[in-house]
């Protein structure tokens, strides 16, 4: 057992840190800068990160879920407003269904509450839809594709989702997915949302800590007050615990049998989901009144966290999966 990142994994992380820090939005106004967004999107496309879970020569993915999680965490930390989790989950679905690689930019559709992969004929939403022309969903267990036409809806200001009409025309793209394959896919989705949440927490903590070091009240930096210090210390603790669960969940996706991978990912998701919301709320609290304005990035972190929390199951459904995974009639 050695859970340190390998030299290659550290190099991947360093590349992701550099790319994200050079092109991430540094203010709410930056979110509307289409030149920056286009540059970020092109830079991410050039890295090939969205193809990490496409099928290699042996049918397995090019890279493990750990590599995908490393990228997801850094994109979350930087509030990267470009697609990654959606296209990665789409590539995984195509690989598991034995389908050819997508022609254009593609993402996945979930039920409209984001809780599971979408089923044809039911209300659905394409997640992480920036730049995507189409989304994948299931029809009778078979993998199908629908085109995206509706305008994007921003719960998460960095990753818009796109409603899909019930009667959207679906084109078959792959064979029926096995239960095991869908379980693995869900485990990957949960692990990637955990990684995104860890990144979001790190970014929100950094934002609030920087503010606490410059904002003065009562003649002192507010970061010198224990009440503020303890809020931020608790945020660090929640983030570090989350990081350990997220790392393990990412490893488990490819290393453990499907049911164990899902139970592991669900435990991590329960932990990261609870922590993610609290940490982002703390970031708003530390900013005081400013934190409740549209111009402060704190709510952008919270909004991103809320979507990642709901994606494929938040705290409640994840705890149910943990109990089910433990067996012994606990479910």
């Amino acid at each position, binding site marked *: *057992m*050695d*859970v*340190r*990142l*390998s030299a290659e*994994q550290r190099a991947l992380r360093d590349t992701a840190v550099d790319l994200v820090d050079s092109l991430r939005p540094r203010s709410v106004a930056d979110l509307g800068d289409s030149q920056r967004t286009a540059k970020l999107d092109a830079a991410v496309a050039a890295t090939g990160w969205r193809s990490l879970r496409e099928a290699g020569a042996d049918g397995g993915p090019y890279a493990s879920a*750990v590599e995908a999680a490393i990228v997801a965490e850094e994109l979350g930390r930087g509030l990267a407003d470009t697609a990654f989790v959606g296209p990665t989950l789409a590539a995984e679905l195509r690989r598991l269904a034995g389908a050819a690689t997508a022609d254009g930019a593609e993402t996945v559709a979930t039920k409209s509450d984001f809780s599971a992969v979408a089923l044809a004929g039911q209300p659905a939403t394409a997640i992480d839809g920036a730049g995507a022309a189409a989304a994948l969903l299931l029809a009778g267990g078979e993998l199908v594709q629908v085109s995206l036409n509706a305008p994007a809806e921003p719960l998460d200001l960095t990753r818009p989702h796109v409603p899909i009409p019930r009667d959207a025309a679906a084109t078959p793209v792959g064979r029926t997915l096995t239960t095991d394959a869908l379980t693995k896919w869900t485990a990957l989705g949960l692990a990637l949302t955990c990684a995104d949440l860890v990144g979001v927490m790190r970014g929100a*903590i950094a934002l609030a*800590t920087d503010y*606490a*070091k410059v904002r003065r009240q009562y003649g*002192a*930096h507010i*970061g*010198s*007050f*224990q009440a*503020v*210090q*303890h809020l*931020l*210390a*608790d945020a*660090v*603790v929640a983030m*570090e*615990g989350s*990081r*350990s*669960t997220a*790392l*393990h969940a990412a*490893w*488990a996706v490819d*290393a453990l049998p499907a049911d164990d991978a899902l139970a592991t990912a669900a*435990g991590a998701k*329960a*932990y990261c989901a609870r922590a993610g919301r609290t940490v982002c709320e703390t970031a708003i609290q530390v900013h005081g009144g400013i934190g409740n304005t549209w111009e402060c990035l704190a709510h952008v972190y919270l909004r991103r966290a809320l979507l990642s929390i709901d994606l494929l199951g938040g705290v409640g459904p994840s*705890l*149910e999966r*943990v*109990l089910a995974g*433990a*067996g*012994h*009639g*606990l479910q």
Partner: protein
Amino acid sequence: MDFSDSPAEAEFRARLRGWLADNNPGLPASSTSDEYWAGQAAWHQALYDAGFFGMSWPVEIGGHGLPSVYEAIVDDELATAGAPPRPSLGYLVQGILHHGSEGIRRRLLPGIVNGRDRWCQGFSEPEAGSDLASLRTTAVRDGEDYVITGHKVWTSYSDAADWCLVLARTDPGVPPHKGISAFRVSMRQPGVQQQPLRMINGITREFGEVLFDGARAPAADMIGEPGEGWRLAMTVVSHEREPGELGYVARYRKAVKELAALVAGSPDDYGPEQRRELAWAMVESEMLRQHVCRRLSDRLDGSSGGPEGSVDKLLMTQVEQCVGHAALSVGGAAADDDTWLKLYLYSRAQSVMGGTSQIQRNLVATRILGLPAS
């Protein structure tokens, strides 16, 4: 990045699992019964004699010189077997390893590691808790000895101990944290009186208080240089904050396993709130297990003892108190068995012992986030 066992680790795990199948003493949880404390020495010696104690400590002192991750494997298997956790001595060993001379290390540590010499730790005093540097116990040189006078409290295992690691003031003329030295003091001498403390859950064998009234310690038993006591104490408490050093993961997972078995045994007796508390205890204890793997792996680079210890202490506390809440919710209501109530009550001490959670948060804020001291 790999959470799975290497071939050597897998072999070790299988050997330990086989040994535990025949050698689990089946003691009750340390937090709920004095029976555990009565049997702890024998359990320590059995683990040591079978080659399953002190995995990551140097060979010269009776350890095995293996990577720290072997400690995580021991905790895993103890929990899986439902065996008692390993005795938590790591912080004492680390303090003496880092600050004792070569001679002191070779003379004192083998007996601690093999479980034949029982030690307790005389740090806290009635007027020196979080503010440890204000301690009042004195050690005055008298020929080849020091004479120790003072009152120590929260002294774990004082009733069973042969020796006490005492922090005492040797130089009242310098700033408080510079005038403290550390000694090994025999508990078996006329100038030492100890009495048990009865804790909120009724146990009496874990904590005690000790009165030193003219007790003597040879000058040769000073650990570190005169005035090095504060630094030794900081080494000890930083390791006392590390769940990997303490082996508490095994204790938490054992309790969670037993609670899960209760609910699984008669599912209709437990409602949604109880199942939710149980699920959180599973999630939290599993988090700590993975977190320890992460920290122990980081030690392969040689790092340890930094301010991350405060993060780990706060995580460990959160887990212990979450498991405590599950114990109260799932098992606490049983009228004929107060084991779970006791476990819950014991969990409240975790946010105090080894440095309160308030102090840990101060350390995280100033030393990790770089916020200005208040």
